[in-house]
């Protein structure tokens, strides 16, 4: 049975008389231990899907089920034990006046863990930061280190599902490789389920077994890693994305031919 099951998800943002229909009927299901990618350009609603799952965007239609159980509004504490999110911008997603230690202990305190000391040390160890980083502030860390702290914060409650919203797009190419390797290793070790949102097809091809292409809030097509690698796209839009990812010269040639 699918661990995460979304059917006909709709998200509408309302401001006065204006309505923005950000997600229009998205259906997907992710089984335990799988890594699922969502690709699309900005404004396609890919991040909104993730935000709707964890209650940061209003669900106006359709259902989201985890383990077969429909989500409640507001989410129960045990939801956050199971599902955690890593955000795009490590510069904006850590509290500037909280030390790494405080950032990591807070979820433990909320969920009533008693062995906080060892868990914080262990979490830092797991993401490749020694305990020397424990009492630092975010401004004393580089972008890659901050993203590691954000990943540690998500992992500290030992969730089963990790929602990753463009986890590497704010990082340099060399740091991106390190963070992707870290995520890959942790998934192997703990059997985690990932839903990864990215605009970079090569990141998704590297990380995910299956993926969905989104445009204007709708699913364009669902693909497997194999079909992406052999560039067997059924839809024009996906082909356009694939061409664009080849780089400038190749895209020019493809357009000319």
């Amino acid at each position: 049975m699918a661990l995460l099951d979304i059917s006909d998800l709709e998200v509408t943002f309302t401001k006065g008389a204006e309505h923005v229909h950000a997600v229009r009927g998205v259906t997907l299901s992710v089984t335990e231990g799988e890594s699922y990618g969502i690709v699309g350009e900005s404004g396609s609603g890919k991040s909104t899907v993730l935000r709707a799952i964890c209650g940061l965007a209003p669900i106006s239609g359709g259902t989201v089920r985890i383990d077969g159980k429909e989500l409640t509004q507001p989410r129960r504490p045990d939801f956050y034990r199971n599902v955690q999110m890593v955000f795009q911008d490590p510069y904006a997603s850590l509290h500037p006046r909280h030390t790494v230690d405080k950032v990591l202990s807070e979820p433990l305190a909320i969920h009533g863990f008693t062995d906080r000391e060892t868990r914080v040390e262990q979490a830092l160890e797991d993401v490749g930061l020694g305990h020397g980083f424990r009492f630092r502030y975010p401004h004393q860390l580089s972008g890659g280190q901050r993203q590691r702290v954000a990943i540690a914060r998500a992992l500290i409650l030992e969730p089963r599902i990790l929602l990753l919203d463009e986890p590497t797009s704010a990082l340099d190419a060399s740091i991106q490789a390190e963070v992707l390797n870290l995520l890959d290793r942790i998934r192997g070790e703990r059997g985690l389920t990932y839903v990864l949102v990215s605009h970079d097809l090569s990141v998704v091809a590297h990380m995910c077994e299956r993926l969905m292409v989104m445009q204007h809030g709708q699913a364009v097509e669902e693909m497997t890693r194999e079909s992406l690698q052999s560039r067997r796209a059924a839809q024009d839009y996906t082909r356009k994305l694939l061409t664009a990812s080849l780089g400038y010269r190749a895209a020019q040639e493809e357009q000319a031919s």
Partner: protein
Amino acid sequence: MTDLLNVQNLRIAFPSRQGPVEVVRGVSFAMGKERLGIVGESGSGKSQTGRAILGLTPPPGKATADRLEFDGQDLRNATKSDWRNIRGERISMVMQDPKFSLNPVMTIGRQLTETYRTHRKATKAEAWERGLEMLNAVQIRDPERVMNAYPHELSGGMGQRAMIAMMLVTEPELLIADEPTSALDVTVQIEVLRILDALVTDRGMGLIFISHDLRLVSSFCDRVLVMYAGQVVEEVKATELTRAKHPYTQGLFNCLPKIEGGQRPLPTLERDAAWAI
């Protein structure tokens, strides 16, 4: 033939409690009317190099060079009025993020016409016409709406194109583009590059393209300077980037994931202290 731009031994230092820290340490290059790429990680000094060419090193930083010539003119001792005739007129710069580099309380139209009228004798109506033309040139579909819009009313891609239009309205001889496409989606990225490419080919403009995306730069530029720790570690022809010799360049190239799949885990960059010497 004189080079469009000639930089010899450019050094930029920022004072600190431990004495001056050099962020750019002896960068030299010369370029004509071509597309030159500068690639490196954050902190490698690539953006500072671009800014120093326009005399925009933020204080208290100090830029020194043995030679810094634009079209035969020495830029090292340029006065304020010299700079006024160069900046925006002969050399323009496109910044990374349109959200931070456009004036949030002025419409695009006002900013565009202001640029044009500062450098050219023109009436408001003429400048407005010219602005519309430029927005058309960067493939904005409804230029009238964009001229009357404030920056926050535009998407990232639109804002970036509006900024490129603003920088090009005076038809500069050299354009310095600092990560012009990093904030954009892949499909929009290709469009913006197409616009820049057309400008280089049609108008004979020089272009310095600063980016951390090695693959993009190699597919767009003619020549690439690879920077590490404030120095140029390698200069390669873009087409020969896969055959780069320096381990840093190879590392940067190999650590990118590929759609076709490849190594798992991804090869990471092993830094060698000797590169920074």
